[in-house]
């Protein structure tokens, strides 16, 4: 048997909860995240659901998992491999055993390892009884039977009773990580406040699990993870899609502009539409359009009417919106277009992550149609980038494409809730003088944005649209020189935004042999890999991560010029590296690409870096 990798005090631990779709693993994981946050740990989580809405019970295809990495240090990924694996049935074990580190711990509901369930998971023998799990430490917990016993006098239906066994599992894990139960009990009381019997059932199951762990010899010791040094403040766990929705709400409130969202359902972006549909309390005006085109066109109408306006989609939907993006570009209207990317082309792997819509965001329109392209890099910073997308769109009178992806959309990380005055002011470019002194396409000199005058503004009646506009007046003209001039002004307007962006930062030495470059959602894995290498004594590697892609931060070239070699890591076939090569052709670029619908593992990035350094 491998040595137990759990020790009395650990800096980082990865736990994976896994069970049948109906076993409540996502809720269990969410509650453990909550408990970890309260304990002061940093964390990152990722769910792994079956693609089917209701996969057959007990089948491997129906396994639903939730992975979390917690630590007493900053945590940027949900972890490559797992220290503790909770399995509620044989299928969950079969689907997840390969993620478990040798010497890792398995907590299994042994009551569910029946011959019927074993057969569904393709086990001939019960792996809890033979040598299959000899490399691991197995806790055979009678979760189902002890839960039934604990809940027997509550008068609940058997289905409700067995459903509560996830709280039993949580009780075991909470004991394992030396966590008090009070906060979790508070959570249960809040969550089921309308159903007192369910509160009681869940608390009893939780206690049963905790007591099982306390009283059994199976757990030799519990693990302590010291709190991480995180900035002071109030925190909550947030997923990327909610964070994007909330960033838009914050920008709406800060700017005093009502928020209009017009979207069409698409995986994995729909949750933004769902969240804002539930935010009528914040005044969000949400329109579920009949198709992607109607969605962006309605968003353009809302923008012309003077609202902060957004449309959310994923790659295939963004393709349908492309023509209308051209209208927003030439009309110079503020618009936030969120693309939560998934693996493509076409339907591709609709529930899997990829960064392959970068070319589309940069170039996927007819005509010369520049706009801002930016990308979020963690579930919690989706808030800030969504806020910034809205701010830049309105201040600069331009559409903005914000890229997220499946990984950020469904993953969670702790978010320090900003104080209202921490958010950057949003200055709406409204013309302040009399209407006679204003023209529809006159511009502010510094950033070349036009003014945002909308229906209801008396005396400012004007027409806009898809036809080329005469400079300043906006009247129609086919004047060839005017078209060239306007094309260049629209490009220059976007380029000048670089001046407003934060300087690009570098981790590690300011010059040297190798610069690792990432963008968007891969920040966690690359940052962890580089940080670990630096901690291990590597002095030749530095890291820079891009959130602003068009325009690039002003110091980009200066940074790239400071290293012998540049290694661009991305979850596509080399789109950002292609962009960098075309912008800065003088540097030497290498690339590391993964196109498997999966995020990077820290280990594979580390291996790449080590390979490049040893070349």
């Amino acid at each position: 048997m491998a040595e137990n990798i759990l020790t009395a005090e650990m800096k980082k631990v990865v736990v994976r909860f896994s069970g049948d779709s109906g076993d409540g693993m996502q809720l269990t994981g969410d509650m453990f995240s909550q408990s970890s946050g309260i304990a002061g740990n940093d964390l990152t989580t990722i769910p792994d659901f079956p693609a089917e809405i209701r996969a057959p019970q007990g089948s491997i295809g129906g396994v639903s998992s939730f992975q979390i990495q917690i630590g007493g240090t900053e945590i940027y990924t949900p972890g490559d491999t797992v220290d503790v694996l909770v399995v509620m049935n044989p299928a969950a074990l079969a689907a997840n055993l390969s993620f478990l580190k040798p010497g890792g711990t398995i907590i299994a509901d042994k009551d569910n390892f029946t011959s019927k369930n074993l057969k569904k998971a393709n086990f001939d023998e019960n792996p809890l009884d033979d040598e299959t799990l000899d490399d691991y430490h197995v806790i055979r917990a009678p979760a189902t039977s002890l839960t039934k016993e604990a809940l027997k006098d509550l008068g609940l239906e058997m289905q409700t009773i067995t459903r509560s066994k996830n709280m039993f599992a949580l009780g075991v894990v909470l004991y394992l990580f030396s966590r008090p139960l009070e906060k979790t009990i508070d959570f249960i009381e809040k969550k089921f406040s309308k159903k007192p019997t369910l509160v009681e059932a869940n608390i009893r199951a939780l206690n049963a699990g905790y007591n099982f762990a306390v009283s059994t010899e199976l757990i030799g010791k519990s693990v302590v993870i010291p709190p991480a040094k995180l900035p002071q403040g109030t925190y909550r766990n947030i997923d990327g899609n909610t964070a994007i929705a909330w960033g838009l709400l914050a920008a709406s409130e800060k700017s005093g502009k009502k928020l209009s969202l017009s979207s069409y359902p698409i995986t994995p972006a729909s949750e933004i539409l769902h969240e804002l549909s539930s935010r009528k309390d914040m005044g969000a005006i949400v329109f579920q359009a009949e198709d992607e085109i109607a969605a962006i066109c309605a968003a353009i109408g809302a923008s012309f009417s003077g609202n902060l306006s957004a449309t959310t989609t994923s790659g295939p939907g963004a393709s349908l919106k492309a023509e209308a993006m051209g209208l927003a570009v030439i009309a110079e209207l503020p618009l936030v277009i969120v693309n939560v990317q998934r693996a493509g082309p076409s339907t591709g792997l609709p529930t899997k992550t990829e960064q392959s819509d970068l070319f589309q965001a940069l170039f996927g329109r007819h005509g010369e149609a520049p706009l801002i392209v930016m990308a979020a890099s963690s579930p919690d910073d989706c808030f800030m980038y969504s806020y910034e997308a809205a701010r830049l769109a309105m201040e600069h009178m331009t559409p903005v494409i914000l890229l997220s992806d499946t990984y950020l959309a469904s993953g969670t990380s702790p978010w320090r809730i900003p104080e209202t005055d921490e958010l950057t002011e949003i200055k709406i470019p409204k013309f302040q003088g009399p209407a006679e002194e204003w023209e529809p396409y006159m511009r502010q000199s510094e950033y070349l944005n036009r003014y945002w005058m909308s229906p209801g503004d008396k005396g400012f009646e004007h027409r806009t649209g898809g036809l080329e506009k005469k400079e300043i007046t906006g009247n129609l003209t086919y004047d060839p020189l005017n078209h060239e001039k306007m094309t260049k002004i629209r490009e220059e307007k976007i380029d000048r935004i670089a001046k407003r962006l934060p300087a690009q930062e570098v981790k590690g030495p300011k010059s040297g042999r190798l610069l690792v470059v990432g963008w968007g959602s891969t920040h966690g894995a690359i940052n962890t890999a580089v940080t670990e290498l630096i901690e291990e004594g590597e002095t030749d590697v530095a890291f820079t991560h891009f959130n602003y892609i068009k325009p690039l931060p002003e110091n980009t070239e200066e940074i790239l010029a400071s290293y012998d070699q540049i290694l661009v890591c991305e979850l596509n076939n080399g789109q950002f590296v292609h962009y960098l090569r075309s912008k800065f052709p003088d540097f030497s670029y290498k690339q590391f690409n993964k196109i498997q619908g999966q995020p990077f593992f820290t280990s594979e990035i580390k291996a790449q870096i080590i390979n490049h350094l040893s070349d």
Partner: protein
Amino acid sequence: MQAEKTKDKRALTSKDFKSDQAVRWCPGCGDYMILAIMQKAFTQMDNAKENFLSVSGIGCSSRITYYLETYGIHSIHGRAISVATGAKLANPDLNVWVFTGDGDCMAIGGNHFIHACRRNVNLNIIIFNNKIYGMTKGQSSPTTPAGVKTKTAPEGSYENPFNIGEVAIGAGATFFARVPDNNPKLMEDVMMQAYHHKGTSVIEVLQNCVIFTDGIHEKITGRDTKDDNQIILEHGKPMIFGKEENRGLKINGMRLEKTVFENGTDDSLNHDAEEIDPLLHLALSKLHLPDYPVAMGVIRKVKSTPFEERVHSAIASVKKQNKIKNTDQLFRSGNTWQIE
């Protein structure tokens, strides 16, 4: 505010709605009449001028936006209704007019059209139906009648055309009217009824294209034929037509049938535009030559709460009930923790 509005209204004339842009339609085009009537009708609408919004798609019809001195968006092909829906939802105070054509609205924009009809957004959709693609120079449109020769059907169109009224009413439109482009009085009346109707108003204008389908509506709209070939409907009035005003419509079994009054007996039906059941409205929309006159005027006008009113009243009622009043309270609600 009210006083100011009234003052504005009194001051406005057609001229106030004329933009400084030169009008560039072919001489003799039916679009001129629509423009003139819109400019006139706008002066009678009880809205501040800055709340007028005209939205158009692509095609000859859609150029009208540039000629109206209001806020306007000349959008993209087929999408005017979507743009207008977003604008109206964003600001329900707007008086929104969509100008589109049979190609723009019934082909590339067909999806948006049917959904607007079912949603009942308070928009006025004017469809310039010349039964051809004019701006792209003469291709068949979804309303081109079978047999008509076009660039894409040189032997004559072999497609079954849409009847706009049938599509609109079938999709749940609460208001449908049809007018010829040479009856300014009726057009103005219909536009004002559309303005007062709360919900999606669909107005089909039989508009003549002097280049590609010149005279295509002639049998219906011609000076000598119009009395016999049009039946102008008025809510609550008998449905009668003909030079002698001696013909009408009655029901026979499941269908409408012509009736001729003899010896002063008038057994024709009265028009009821406000009947919820669309059966007869559909039948009226579909009447066509040579056996029947073509129905004009407001065929259907039924009450139903407009979409934007539903959306905004839902927002208002949630806001009223909810304890969370701003984003800071929202972000701090639920499960949070402190790091000291």
